[in-house]
């Protein structure tokens, strides 16, 4: 009663081919952007729009002397710390309220009222409470990532197919088993998407936050270079910030490839 083996291209092979294709198209898009930038610099011919290579050369120099690395590190630490605190809390609370009507009745009204508010507007308030140091910036980014993940976790947990829940319950699964084998894996792709959006917003807000009363971070460095009228320096830091944002995306992509392999098949 052996079933026929269909023509199967192995998953690993397909994934690596897809990765090469993706890298190639990203490189092409990057080349177009740099080309347009070079063209614009030629046409505008002003010091505030230097040629891309002078910005990249400065980026290399600043990375080599360690001054950009210091500020990149300061920014990364703020985002990383906020993520580390927000992700487990928001995931747990969100998934739980998606599966429990009683908890949801308590959580959802707060989400409804607070989620649409632009968190950046609270920066002055947060700074009054937490001071001008890192904790205010970390808290602000925490709020953004937390809200995004909480809403996605709750909605995904609500949408788990009842048939899967029934199947597990009929096997005698405990509540914890249900979370581990059904609710969490079902929600994971949505959580990673939410993380992508959340990190994008977080980097933008971080830039704003770092322009206030800061002396470290890429946001501060960009504004500082601007006031020093050192445009290549300013662009170098903008590129560094862009690379940082890209790096965040990449990490989420890698996590998705590693933990959501089953989604490749459809």
């Amino acid at each position, binding site marked *: 009663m*052996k*079933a026929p083996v269909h023509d199967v291209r192995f998953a690993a092979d397909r994934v690596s081919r897809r990765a090469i294709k993706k890298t190639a198209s990203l490189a092409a898009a990057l080349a177009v952007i740099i080309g347009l930038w070079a063209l614009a610099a030629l046409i505008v011919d002003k010091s505030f729009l230097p040629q891309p290579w002078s910005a990249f050369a400065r980026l290399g120099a600043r990375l080599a002397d360690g001054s950009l690395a210091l500020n990149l590190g300061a920014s990364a630490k703020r985002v990383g710390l906020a993520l580390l605190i927000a992700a487990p809390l928001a995931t747990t609370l969100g998934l739980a309220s998606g599966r429990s009507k009683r908890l949801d009745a308590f959580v959802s009204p707060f989400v409804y009222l607070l989620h649409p508010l632009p968190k950046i507007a609270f920066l002055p308030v947060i700074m009054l409470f937490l001071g001008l140091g890192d904790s205010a910036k970390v808290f602000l980014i925490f709020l953004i990532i937390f809200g995004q993940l909480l809403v996605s976790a709750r909605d995904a947990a609500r949408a788990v*197919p009842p048939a899967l829940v029934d199947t*597990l319950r009929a096997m005698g699964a405990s509540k914890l088993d249900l979370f581990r084998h059904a609710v969490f894996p079902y929600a*994971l792709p949505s959580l990673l998407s939410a993380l992508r959006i959340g990190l994008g917003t977080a980097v933008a807000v971080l830039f704003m936050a770092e322009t206030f009363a800061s002396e470290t971070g890429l946001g501060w460095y960009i504004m500082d270079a601007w006031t020093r009228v050192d445009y290549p320096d300013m662009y170098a830091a903008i590129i560094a910030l862009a690379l940082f944002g890209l790096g965040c995306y990449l990490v989420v992509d890698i996590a998705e490839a590693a933990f959501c392999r089953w989604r490749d098949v459809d």
Partner: protein
Amino acid sequence: MMGLRLEGLGLEYSTPEGPVSAFAGFDAELGPGSIGAIVGPSGSGKSSVIRVIAGLEKPSRGHVEIDGIGLDELQVAGTGSRRARTAVIFQDYGLLPWKTVEANVELPLLLSGMKAKERRRRSRPVLEELGLEDFARFYPGRLSGGMRQRVALGRAFAQAPDLLLMDEPFSSLDELTRETMQETLLETQSRRDTTVLIVTHSIDEAAYLADVVYIMRYHNPGRLVATLRAPGGIERSPAYREEPTFRDFANRIRRVLEGREE
């Protein structure tokens, strides 16, 4: 009496508009190793019967006994006991898309706290028996409907259950795959002598598989209107589907379902 015994079983759901009765007064005795089929139109409460026996709903009335032990006792006795004895297969197979075929088959064993080595030892022969050994590392999303149903069967039999409950397990398969799966079910079931209760809306499926056919109709609530026994001395094989004995039995089920015969 071993096997499955249902006594005056009934289920009411509570809704905001008040209690709604799904079915009532279901009596049945299914001997060990036999196959029972519940047939009836949509809304006659047949799936609810399965859900109660599976322990997913608490019966409002009556009593369920599996191999002489009451459902309440089975549930009170601890989480391990009931799941070891009863396996359930739902219409959409209930496979977890993020687990490989192998991991799906081993899931109930994992939930009962079995070690990895022992799980593998139990799942291997079942995968081989169902022709799934080459697909052990596949995700269900890459399998056809028939193959997925095989995985669901494998998962059920890996638990070595005394009772297998199936809720319209083959209804989303094409006619030929469906008949192949019926043969697969019969083969695996007879080797183990598992008691099977299957819900189906296919008259032919009930007539072919079942030793006992329970016919339900909607009478607000759904009720068991007749219990028919399959003709004696038959041998189930694809050839049997064309024999007059089979057609007569299927026609009788149809007449009772339509209310033309009691």
